[in-house]
């Protein structure tokens, strides 16, 4: 059973005061997230990440489409007992203390009385909030609020956790702690769905990612697959200082360092290159597939979309 199945969810807003014009925040989205994986939902600001999360949480009603969470309809209130949600830039009742807030949320999530106290202490320790008894939330810093947010998302031990920009407002140390926490959650068998625009985090943590831009899904897949599928370059190193003519003809970049040559060429040229070297009886030292970063993939994906031309066009248009 998939943890999340999004079946064509879409959302169009009507904006404007008198004459309402449609604004498509999310085009029909089809996505599946498996149980036990860490899934990254990536996209630039305003891409539709938060809209998708709000749709899944039932805070906003879709224009069309449905979704299933843990096998049940996303509107089923009972399924909410099994999920946790951290909204973007969370704001909590500032007249409560963290303990009171978590107690309230625990009550609403149906955590039984005796359990609650114990769990609250445990979860606060886990997110690194100590020594805050009696301190009202209005006195919390941004980073502290973020930790409280994560705490309330995992308090009731949900099977599936949704995090919207979990790293925002945290210093590097805090970000590392959250990364560790997310990994721990995976080890506990939970599914984590988090949205972010910080790609290094996604690259480090996620099993699979989806990239969304201007409300449209651009690609989905395992991180390595995505990266590899795009560039697919290899670096070949051979002995000597010669560069066979046929290799030059392939358009490889060659550098001579010491008594070895390094050449970078496309993956599909690999076999031709090996043949060329063999014919010349040149000794091959190594062939290394080149990895690129997710960031490069991301930028390339976004720029290659037809929306990119539109962005430039509409950017001028909307400013007028």
């Amino acid at each position, binding site marked *: 059973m998939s943890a999340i199945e999004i079946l064509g969810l879409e959302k169009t807003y009507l904006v404007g005061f008198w004459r309402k014009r449609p604004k498509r925040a999310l085009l029909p989205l089809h996505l599946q997230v498996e149980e036990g994986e860490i899934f990254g939902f990536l996209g630039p600001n305003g891409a539709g990440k938060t809209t998708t999360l709000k749709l899944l949480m*039932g805070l906003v009603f879709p224009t069309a489409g449905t979704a299933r969470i843990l096998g049940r*309809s996303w*509107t089923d209130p009972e399924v909410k007992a099994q999920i946790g949600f951290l909204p973007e830039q969370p704001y909590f009742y500032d007249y409560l203390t963290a303990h009171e807030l978590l107690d309230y949320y625990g009550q609403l999530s149906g955590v039984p009385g005796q359990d609650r106290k114990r769990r609250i202490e445990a979860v606060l320790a886990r997110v690194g909030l100590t020594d805050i008894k009696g301190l009202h939330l209005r006195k919390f810093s941004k980073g502290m609020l973020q930790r409280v947010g994560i705490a309330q998302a995992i308090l009731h031990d949900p099977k599936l956790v949704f995090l919207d920009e979990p790293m925002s407002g945290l210093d590097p140390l805090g970000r590392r702690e959250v990364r560790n926490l997310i990994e721990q959650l995976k080890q506990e068998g939970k599914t984590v769905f988090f949205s972010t625009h910080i790609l290094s985090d996604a690259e480090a943590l996620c099993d699979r990612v989806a990239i969304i831009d201007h409300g449209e899904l651009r690609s989905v897949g395992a991180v390595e697959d995505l990266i590899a599928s795009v560039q697919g370059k290899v670096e070949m190193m051979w002995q000597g200082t010669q560069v066979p003519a046929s290799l030059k003809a392939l358009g490889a970049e060659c550098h001579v360092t010491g008594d070895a040559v390094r050449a970078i060429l496309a993956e599909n040229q690999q076999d031709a290159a090996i043949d060329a070297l063999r014919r010349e009886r040149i000794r091959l030292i190594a062939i290394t597939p080149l990895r690129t970063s997710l960031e490069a993939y991301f930028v390339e994906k976004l720029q290659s979309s037809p929306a990119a031309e539109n962005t430039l066009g509409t950017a001028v248009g909307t400013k007028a």
Partner: protein
Amino acid sequence: MRSSGSATVIAAFCLAVSMAACVLVLRHIDQIRPHATLDDALYISSPKIVKRASLGFDGLMACIYWTRAVQYFGYRHHNHEVSYNELAPLLEITTALDPQLIPAYQFGANFLAPRPPWGAGQPDRAIQLMEYGIAHNSDNWQLYYNLGFVYYTELKDYKKASEAFARGAEVPNAHPFMRLLAAQMAEHAGEFSTARMLWKATLDTNRETNIRQNAIEHLRSIKVDEDVTNLEAAVTRFGQRTGRLPSSMSELAAAEHLPGIPVDPDGKPYVLTSEGRVLVQNPDDFSFITKGTPPGYKPSAAKFHTRS
């Protein structure tokens, strides 16, 4: 959207049901507390205090008190009450708050002056109210009419009535009947035609339901009185001609060359008694008749007819 769909349906159902229930309960409550606003209204019976308490929203308060005055009268009249003690204060407060609320003066003229159960029986206060109104609305001929009306109907002071109508006739844009009424008062005060003229004028110049119904009742009663007077005069003439009383109404009608048996405004034939008196069949249907009633007749509860 399934689960939220059912909540929506239930909420809509609750809304409809509770709305209906509210209306029903309110109607129930109305029966328990019919004098409601009135009791509240009159804990402050001094116009000055009310004026101060209304914080400058005099006009609105005047409208509210005016509504209460009409409700008060209507309710009590409907229940055949015999006293309307609060009517004068209510109208006084109304006109203190808004001296230009003409309908209040008209209501006062029609219902403050008459004796109970048709009014409060306070013609002097009615006169006071009219004079107050005239003082604040010197360009309104209707107030002079009301003044003359009170003098004529209740105080039977035909001289003052005539004066009032004459004063009113001087006002620019006065209705032509003002001059006519002044003349009528002076010469033919006690006649049916004068009374009819007056009540018809009231009917023509008022839109308020209670006043109109009252005027209609008076006109009906005048017709009865007139008919009875004429018929009894006919009986006398018959007696002078034949030396005996007519044996029946049809004989009288034939002798007078009337088209048929004379009927009252409700269509019921007049009754000729053996002593030669003419009676109306149902005296109770005509609140203000002074003739055509059997000896020892006591009027029962006054009521307004709705037929004109």
